[in-house]
């Protein structure tokens, strides 16, 4: 990660300030949302309709989602798109079977109809229910919560955003050999209202921000090209997160590195020690620890799509997932984490717990419904629906690797590597349906020789088996190098739902991992 540089930030702010402030986007396209008493009235109509129709439990979510996205290619702004989706979802339990219906018409009548439709679905499905749904007890909460942000990006003038993208592109384009630059900004805002027949009434307001760019260098004579994407990450924060990042510094550096990649050499395939920077490692954590510790996967509930998990329930508390250094924490409380909430979509408070402790697999991600499946008294608050029209189910909290207690640096980790590769940035990623065999690429690769970072490499990927990989971890950097990566759009479930999730980690070292040369191509 490049360090923040104040001068570059001022530079783009100056450009933006030269334009007017008329581009302010107010968050509601539709006008004011119903006030609190009105929302309670609407939701109450659905809850009582559900109860009357025979539901033992019901909840209603009345949610508004705003998105804004801008993208630019070189000095052309390709698009500015603002979007809003507003509606309500009613979920019911009838005789231990779930039913759900969503409607974009947020009126008392439409909500009642949705409640009845949800009950009808539950009744139709009841004959197929082999095991009644039992919800772990949860207290009734009445609360309001805002995610952590200083400047709501939806209140920042659009000119300022356009100026930033064009300036990033201009900076990268100045580098000789940089052929193309694409940049984009995406913002999301959620205003969520949840009530249940158990007495909870929760309002949550979440804001997420993401800026990224990619520079492509093309050598037309040779007919080859290379790309270098930004190492930045999306966060559950506001416009201040964009202001703090040294975009222009990274744009120039990325352009130079894209060009440099054209003349870098691919690796000799074989076993190498890997030093993985947090801008890269977050995605490996996501795939090889985040998904396999989902309880629904472990028990076969996602077998038809995402798959199952090698971390079966008999392994809990015993299986050596990684070396003693490896501590993975599930966390819905981490400031800035994309999956951070005060309450999940079951109304369960956000919490923090260990999934892997001192290398041993100790726990799963769970919801209220899942707690009973493994004899837990309470779920870990991992229910999430990506829209008012989606059914909540188990989704990933922020899953992060604890740093070393001591202040160890990346250079300290390099010092003990004779022949290795340092990887920055996320690239290609793929893992099997039980989360054993994975392959990851990256953005930047540097040879490590005799403890020192040496020349640049290109077209590197590593392939490993999850427990072998984490057991080969013999070095972690300290708290100062801890960094939060993440994704706006982790896919799971049928129909597919997206979840925003973060993964924090320090730089980490892994011994003797299998490395491929991906430039070797498919020729034979």
């Amino acid at each position, binding site marked *: 990660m490049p360090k923040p540089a104040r001068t570059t930030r001022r530079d783009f702010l100056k450009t933006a300030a030269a334009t*007017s402030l*008329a*581009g302010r*986007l107010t968050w509601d*396209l*539709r*006008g004011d949302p119903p006030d609190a008493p009105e929302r309670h009235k609407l939701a109450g109509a659905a809850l009582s309709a559900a109860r009357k129709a025979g539901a033992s439990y019901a909840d209603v979510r009345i949610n508004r989602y705003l998105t804004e996205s801008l993208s630019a290619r070189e000095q*052309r*702004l390709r698009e*500015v*798109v*603002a*979007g*809003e989706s507003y*509606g309500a*979802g009613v979920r019911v339990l009838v005789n231990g079977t*779930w039913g759900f219906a*969503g*409607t*974009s018409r947020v009126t008392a009548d439409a909500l009642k109809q949705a409640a009845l*439709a*949800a009950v009808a*679905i539950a009744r*139709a*499905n009841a*004959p*197929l229910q*082999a095991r009644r749904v039992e919800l772990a007890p949860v207290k009734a909460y009445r609360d309001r919560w805002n995610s952590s942000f200083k400047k709501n990006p939806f209140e920042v003038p*659009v000119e300022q955003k*356009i100026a930033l993208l*064009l300036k990033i592109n201009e900076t990268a384009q100045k580098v000789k050999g940089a*052929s193309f630059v694409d940049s984009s900004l995406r913002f999301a805002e959620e205003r969520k209202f949840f009530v249940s027949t158990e007495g909870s009434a929760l309002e949550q307001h979440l804001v997420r921000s993401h800026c990224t760019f990619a520079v492509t260098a093309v050598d*037309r004579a040779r007919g080859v*090209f290379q*790309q270098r994407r930004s190492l930045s990450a999306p966060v559950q924060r506001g416009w201040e997160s964009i202001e703090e990042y040294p975009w222009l510094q990274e744009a120039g550096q990325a352009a130079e590195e894209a060009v440099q990649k054209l003349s870098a050499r691919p690796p000799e395939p074989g076993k190498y020690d890997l030093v993985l920077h947090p801008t890269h490692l977050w995605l490996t954590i996501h795939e090889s620890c985040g998904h396999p510790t989902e309880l629904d996967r472990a028990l*076969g*509930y996602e*077998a*038809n*799509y995402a798959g199952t998990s*090698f971390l079966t329930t008999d392994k809990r508390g015993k299986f050596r997932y990684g070396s003693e250094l490896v501590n993975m924490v599930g966390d819905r409380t981490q400031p800035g984490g994309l999956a951070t909430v005060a309450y999940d979509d079951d109304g369960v408070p956000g919490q923090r717990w260990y999934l892997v402790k001192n290398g041993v697999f100790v726990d799963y991600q769970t919801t209220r419904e899942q707690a009973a499946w493994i004899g837990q008294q309470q779920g870990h608050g991992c229910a999430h629906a990506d829209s008012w*029209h*989606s059914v909540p189910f188990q989704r990933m909290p922020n899953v992060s690797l604890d740093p070393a207690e001591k202040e160890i640096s990346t250079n300290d980790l390099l010092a003990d590597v004779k022949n290795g590769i340092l990887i920055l940035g996320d690239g*290609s990623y*793929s893992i*099997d*349906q*039980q989360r*054993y*065999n994975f*392959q990851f690429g990256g953005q930047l690769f540097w040879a490590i020789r005799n403890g020192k970072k040496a020349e640049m490499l290109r077209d590197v*990927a590593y*392939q490993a088996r999850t427990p072998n990989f984490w057991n080969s971890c013999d070095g972690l950097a300290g708290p100062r190098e801890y960094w939060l990566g993440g994704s706006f759009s982790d896919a799971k479930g*049928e*129909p597919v739902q997206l979840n925003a999730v973060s993964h924090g980690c320090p730089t980490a070292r892994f011994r003797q991992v*299998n490395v491929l040369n991906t*430039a070797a191509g*498919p*020729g*034979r």
Partner: protein
Amino acid sequence: MPILSPDEARALSKRILSLAAVPEAEVSLSGGPSAHLRFAVNTITTSGSADDLSVSFTARHGKRHATVTANQADDPSLKRLVEQAERLARLAPEDPELMPLLGPQEYLPVPGFIAATANLSPQARAEAAGKAIREASAKKLVGAGFYRNSGGFEATANSRGLFAYHAASNARFAMTARTSDGGGSGYAAANSHDAAQVDTAAVAATAADKALASRGARELPPGVYAVVLEPQAVADLFTTLRFAGLSAREADEGRSVFSAPGGKNRIGEKLFASPVNLYTDPQHPAVPGSPFTEAGLPARKIYFAREGVLENLVYDRFWAEKRGKQPTGHPTNLILDGGTHNLEDLIASTARGLLITRFWYIRAVNPQTMLLTGLTRDGLFYIEKGKVQYPVRNFRFNESPVELLKQVELLGPQRRVVSSEQGRFAMYLPALKVRAFRFTSLSEAV
């Protein structure tokens, strides 16, 4: 929101356009009901229904433009939508690539909407899933599956009088059957615009047969094998080709597998084996597409490859004009012609190789060669002397669909398929016998 009829969609578009203060604007509408049912571990899990409406308005101020999308259609909401887009459009810089709005167009008729499929009852979904669960239980297997039915319309209109409308329905069922010891797994799926064509019992029976046949898989070394791909596996691989691979502009800019040195592309080159005919055809009866693509551009039959020669790539209107080509728009379906052989013929022609039924988690590794990585899943079998001999452990591959089409030896019968990971884009693809396919490591996942 029910599905809007053509008249209703036209009236709503006109109402929105009449609110516009800008001289030029576009409206896109879409919506309709969808419902689904999931089951796993032979029991129902979650299910639901929802309806929605999407209203998208693009305002144009000369060469400036911006788009706002919302899902409410009352007058105050529409007014705010239009004002918001107009305000943003005034602030956007000029777009040198903005093409003039199209005037009224002629569209091919594309029938693909069946009301009964759009409005299937919860009981009908439960009955369909029940058949599959019973099939799994009867064979002592553990079933997980997904049934979804939907109906919807899409409409595009603009201030120059263009109006395009299309309604479509869809039903899809997919199921994975696993042995209770976790040692065998099989997958099957079916999709159609007509729910009556989606036979959940037959899908479940196929998944169950594969699960039972895949038990006791043996380990083979990674390496290059001849392969027979079932249509599902071909669909899983082709999704990347469709999404990322066919852009003419990227090819001309030197950043695609279809780039040629010196700023040229490879159109006209024989890149694939002779029997490869790859095209989009909105009116194909087995996989009806849409009569229009972006901004109301009429969809038409377009060959991307004919007799192995790269014939065309995807041209948007701007790039087509710049290069003196006809715009293609993005394909709304994809068809690869099949051959006269059946799957058994393909297997019988294989001295030593693998039968692949499904791929999983396919991601691009190297865009220069369109190298992809991914894994086999839910049924991989060893073929020797023209016969399936035994199941084998899964592999990770590193291979390119472009290379695959070069290595095609025989084509089998076609089937309507969608990617098992990436969703709803309908393709009509054959089974393929491919001379050489590269596997790089073993996966112990079942």
